[in-house]
């Protein structure tokens, strides 16, 4: 009965098997030979991030910032040790899996001779830190606000965004001022969301506030937010801590307002108020404290950056700090290469970062440009601010006193 299709499939099958083998061999063989971009005029900056799967939007935002910086720097012309150098961005997808990220980083360092690999996820960075300072040496440009990655004292890690723990205090103050003493926890169930929940809980308790049950839910897997929101509201909170990716966060706030919540929101920094406004009415987002949108920064390069971003990503898309901070960090790395006079020695490049900071062109300063880097490798912007979005949909800046990265 089945013999006819099977017989017919034989040649096809043979072809499939042979080509699979050929491809596999090609993969092995191609492996050794492609590392040709060492010092002769071009340098690869590696990027491993989630480009497919649930985190893809986030990974793409980071990638956009990196690509914009690389394009701008190449247009300016980069000169290292008397030679003209073009930067090439090579991106690999890790689907948010730390072990894949580490394999990718290893590949970028080995085969593409990338002196720097960018990763936007704390778990992935921890996995990469297992391999970047031993047999292979490369610098990690770490886009995560989890201070654990600098606490490990990895000498080749550069942490880009501010430590999220710094936000807990101003968030608590604003939350209590505009809401009240009772907080409901409705953050996301990710690694980062849980750390935030903990930090906010500690700070809120320190300020004599009351905290309800931990209602954290996985923003990515919940089909209907109405249930979790009803539960959080049943505690009659004055303030709610929310946050995960911008868009689901916006839906949760909308649902809360719909169910009659009148208090204030504490919005975790992963969610961006202006990006949230693309999926819900701005009035649903009011009375909340969150991180400052990129467009509210007044760094010298912000305006130019936003204009370029609109050209690259379209008018409708909102530029977020993922894009902006990675944009400026690549400029810092390029400048550090210039200062160090090398594109291949990650240790020298990392050592040159402090000097490079003051030399970066103004147009690359777009989102709270750092003025120094700590010994542990954390870029610091002394004038960190958060924002309060009031009932009239106006942003008010609130200064932040930054906490130490030490454990």
């Amino acid at each position, binding site marked *: *009965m*089945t013999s006819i*299709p099977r017989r017919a499939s034989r040649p096809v099958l043979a072809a499939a098997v042979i080509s699979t083998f050929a491809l596999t061999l090609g993969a092995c063989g191609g492996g050794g030979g492609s590392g040709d971009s060492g010092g002769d005029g071009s340098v690869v900056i590696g990027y491993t991030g989630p*480009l*497919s*799967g*649930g985190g*893809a*939007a986030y*990974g*793409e935002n980071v990638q956009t910032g990196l690509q914009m910086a690389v394009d701008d720097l190449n247009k300016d012309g980069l000169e290292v040790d008397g030679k003209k150098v073009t930067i090439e961005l090579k991106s690999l997808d890790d689907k948010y899996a730390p072990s894949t990220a580490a394999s990718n980083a290893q590949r970028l360092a080995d085969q593409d001779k990338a002196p720097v690999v960018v990763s936007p996820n704390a778990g992935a960075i921890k996995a990469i830190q297992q391999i970047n300072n031993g047999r292979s040496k490369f610098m990690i440009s770490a886009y995560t606000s989890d201070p654990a990655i600098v606490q490990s004292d990895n000498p080749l890690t550069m942490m880009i965004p501010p430590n999220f723990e710094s936000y807990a205090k101003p968030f608590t103050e604003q939350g209590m001022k505009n809401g009240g003493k009772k907080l409901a926890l409705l953050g996301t*169930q990710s690694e980062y969301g849980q750390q935030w929940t903990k930090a906010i809980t500690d700070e809120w308790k320190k300020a004599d506030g009351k905290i309800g*049950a*931990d*209602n*954290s*839910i*996985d923003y*990515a*897997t*919940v*089909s*209907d*937010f*109405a*249930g*979790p929101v*009803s*539960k959080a509201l*049943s505690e009659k909170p004055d303030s709610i801590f929310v946050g995960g*990716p*911008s*868009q*689901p966060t916006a*839906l949760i706030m909308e649902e809360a307002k*719909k*169910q*009659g919540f009148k208090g204030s929101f504490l919005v975790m920094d992963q969610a961006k108020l202006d990006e949230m406004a*693309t*999926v*819900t009415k701005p009035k649903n987002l009011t009375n909340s404290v969150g991180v400052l949108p990129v467009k509210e920064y007044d760094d010298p390069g912000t305006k130019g950056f936003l204009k370029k971003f609109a050209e690259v990503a379209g008018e409708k*898309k909102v530029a977020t700090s993922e894009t902006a901070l990675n944009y400026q960090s690549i400029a810092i790395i390029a400048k550090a290469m210039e200062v160090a006079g090398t594109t291949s020695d990650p240790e020298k490049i990392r050592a040159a970062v402090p000097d490079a900071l003051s030399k970066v062109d103004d147009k690359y300063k777009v989102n709270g440009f750092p003025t120094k880097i700590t010994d542990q490798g954390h870029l610091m912007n002394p004038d960190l601010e958060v924002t309060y979005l009031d009932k009239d949909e106006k942003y008010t800046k609130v200064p932040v006193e930054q906490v130490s990265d030490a454990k």
Partner: protein
Amino acid sequence: MTLFTQQLFNGVALGGVYCLAAIGLTLVFGVLRIPNLAHGSLYMLGAYVTYFFLTTVGVPYVAAIGIAALILFVLGVLLERLVFHPLRNSPHTHHMIAAIGAMFFFQAVAQAIWGADFRRMETPISGSVHILGAEISAQRIVIIVTAVVVLSLLTWFIKRSIHGQTIEAIEQDRTGAALVGINPAMVSMLTLGLSALLVTIAAGLVSPINLLSPTMGDSLNLKVFAIIILGGLGSLPGAIVGSFALAIAETMTSTYISSAVGEAVAFIVLVAVLAIKPTGLFAKAVQR
């Protein structure tokens, strides 16, 4: 008490969501005997195609769902023809992996066309109703009502119409059905097309209360499998009971125990039920 009523309504609405997603899957399982792991990605594609007609083309909401459902019907038929039909004599493992291949493909295509960003689908249905102190939005009521209507229509279709009866005949006895002149290949295509159509209606109704993204079907996928197994494979009443039971269990445990338990409860219930009754609640006679 208000919280309890509120959560009961939320649970019923969620049950409607699961129900719409589950019936197509259980139908495919009954007829083709394959666990279609690509079901979640058909749901996702259904949502995006609806979104495309609603937002980009600008046709009315109900029409957008209708057009999308027809397109997905064709896609379901193609999926059966190109992927599952050549595997009809293979063991289930092969279907599973082929379905995963299809899932990878659909997700990558959706991301290539619509991007990885979350999108919101606006509907003309707005407002909310107060019942017994609980607040429930109109969209959720539409979901529950549609779930009931679609299920009634489907039951009618299977019991009364010729095409539907062929589905049931195949479900009951593949060889016997073939002997009386029913073409199993046609019925397989019809079933997969129908399941894609049903899941598109589900997606069109549900995505306004959540967001569109290429991975939106993933979280639903595992749960829907738990539901149809719980109810008994291929059993429509089983799928309905399973959907509402698990949804209410989920909202209630999230409310009164913890959200972590709420997330796991579907699977814990499944394990518990199968430990006692290894063929699910409404098992049909298992036939090879």
